[in-house]
């Protein structure tokens, strides 16, 4: 056996200790084996921004209403947290471990005093074709044609929209994988008191109608899910190269913006406000504009759209070339998990591209 000096032994032990510490911190970060996860803390960290500190809703739906909590089982809550609602803002949380998800569910349940879940009785197999007709007549006004969901999500708080709470998407793979037929049936039989979702029975629909509607909602599972385009190969910017100098390009850009029916808001240097007035780099200019009607619609769909605002095109001289560029809304759109917003991003993309082509033609 090799003899070690005290110093090298110490070094080896030190490495073991450090390795143990690293392992421990990995586990601490990753979470498994952590005893009682703190549901309240997890909720504030991961959910409160959208669902409200006390579960009253916001960008997300209300979670604390007794009518909601009595009508969904723990499996529904767990799966919804795991899978999210692809393309409908609600993120998936694959990074949360079983005990953390359980802690979140316990925390959400405490809002109703942990009252027991009472699902409606199971129904009979329904007729999805008949259900589709009923759905168009009775449900599509809020849940959208084919259950694609209301225009926008969650509770209406910051600007007028068509409903005080926007109806969730029912064709969503995350919803359909989380909700059993009985959970869907319970929403229909009882409605959700405190929301626009009313009991179908109280509106004169029969048990059979409800079975048919459940069958129809379930059938949405077998249709291709609505996809949020995720163009990963898109560049960060839309870029054009101008044949003119900076000043002439800015003049053409202003014309192009107005020709695209955008309101010109302001023209300024990129570093304006960061260097003393008069010392700005005159080869770097931003042209700000806005289409307020489009913006108002976009905010109703997703209030996070402010990250695109205001619309701006930057003109900048680099290595002797005059570049005209904007952010690429298609690329930025991939950050939002919102299919409706992605469609608006495609529109914005075309608008920017046209403006930049017009200004650099």
């Amino acid at each position, binding site marked *: 056996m090799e003899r070690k000096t005290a110093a090298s032994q110490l070094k080896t032990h030190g*490495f073991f200790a450090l390795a143990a510490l690293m392992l421990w911190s990995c586990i601490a970060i990753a979470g498994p084996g952590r005893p009682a996860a703190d549901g309240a803390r997890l909720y504030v960290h991961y959910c409160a921004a959208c669902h409200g500190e006390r579960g009253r809703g916001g960008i997300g739906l209300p979670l604390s209403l007794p009518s909601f909590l009595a009508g969904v089982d723990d499996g529904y809550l767990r799966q919804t947290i795991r899978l999210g609602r692809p393309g409908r803002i609600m993120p998936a949380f694959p990074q949360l471990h079983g005990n953390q998800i359980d802690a979140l569910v316990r925390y959400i349940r405490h809002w109703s005093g942990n009252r027991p879940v009472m699902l409606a009785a199971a129904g009979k197999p329904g007729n999805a074709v008949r259900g589709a007709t009923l759905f168009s007549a009775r449900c599509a006004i809020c849940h959208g044609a084919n259950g694609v969901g209301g225009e926008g999500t969650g509770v209406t708080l910051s600007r007028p929209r068509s409903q005080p709470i926007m109806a969730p998407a029912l064709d969503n793979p995350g919803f359909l994988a989380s909700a059993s037929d009985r959970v869907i049936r319970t929403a229909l039989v009882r409605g959700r008191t405190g929301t626009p979702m009313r009991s179908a029975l109280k509106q004169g629909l029969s048990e059979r109608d409800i079975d048919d509607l459940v069958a129809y909602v379930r059938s949405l599972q077998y249709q291709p899910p609505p996809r949020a385009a995720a163009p990963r190969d898109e560049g960060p910017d839309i870029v054009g190269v101008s044949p003119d100098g900076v000043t002439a390009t800015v003049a053409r850009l202003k014309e192009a913006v107005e020709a695209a029916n955008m309101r010109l808001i302001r023209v300024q240097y990129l570093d304006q406000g960061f260097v003393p007035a008069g010392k700005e780099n005159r080869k770097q200019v931003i042209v700000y504009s806005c289409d307020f009607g489009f913006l108002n619609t976009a905010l109703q769909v997703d209030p996070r759209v402010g990250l695109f605002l205001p619309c701006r095109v930057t003109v900048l001289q680099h290595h002797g070339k005059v570049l005209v560029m904007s952010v690429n809304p298609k690329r930025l759109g991939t950050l939002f998990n919102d299919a409706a917003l992605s469609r608006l991003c495609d529109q914005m993309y075309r608008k920017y591209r046209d403006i930049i082509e017009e200004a650099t033609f």
Partner: protein
Amino acid sequence: MRRYRSLLGVLLLAAFSVATARAGALLMARVDLPFPEAMAQLQDSIVSHGYTISRIQRVDAGLRANGYTTAAYQIVFFAKPAEMRTLPSLDPQIAAYLPLQIVIFAERGHTLLLAANPGRIASFFPQHALQAHFVTWAHDMRAIFREVRHAGQ
């Protein structure tokens, strides 16, 4: 010894990738303060991290002037002057993402803060020289969000 060292390397990497996998694409925080207080706190916090605020964009005022109804909705633009000068020459395309911005809007008595996570935007710009800036911005923005949130507790 070399074995332990590479083990450590693997562990460090694992810890780091777990941490980055958790980084959401957007940073969001709910502040239990009315809009004006949250806005004042946000500006203080941004400045205390060494940034200069160049402009507050009053999106709400623009919407109202055009006949739309909205709660308070504004955008704070900020950056470090030295970065505004030097970064566009490293990669001109980053200019479209500068200055940095935090969206702040009212939801009844609460205020929401929102930003694109610089840690995620970093992946749009593979240049090595830019990466350290994104890391610092991500770190600072998280701290700013935390500070404003705590001010409301």
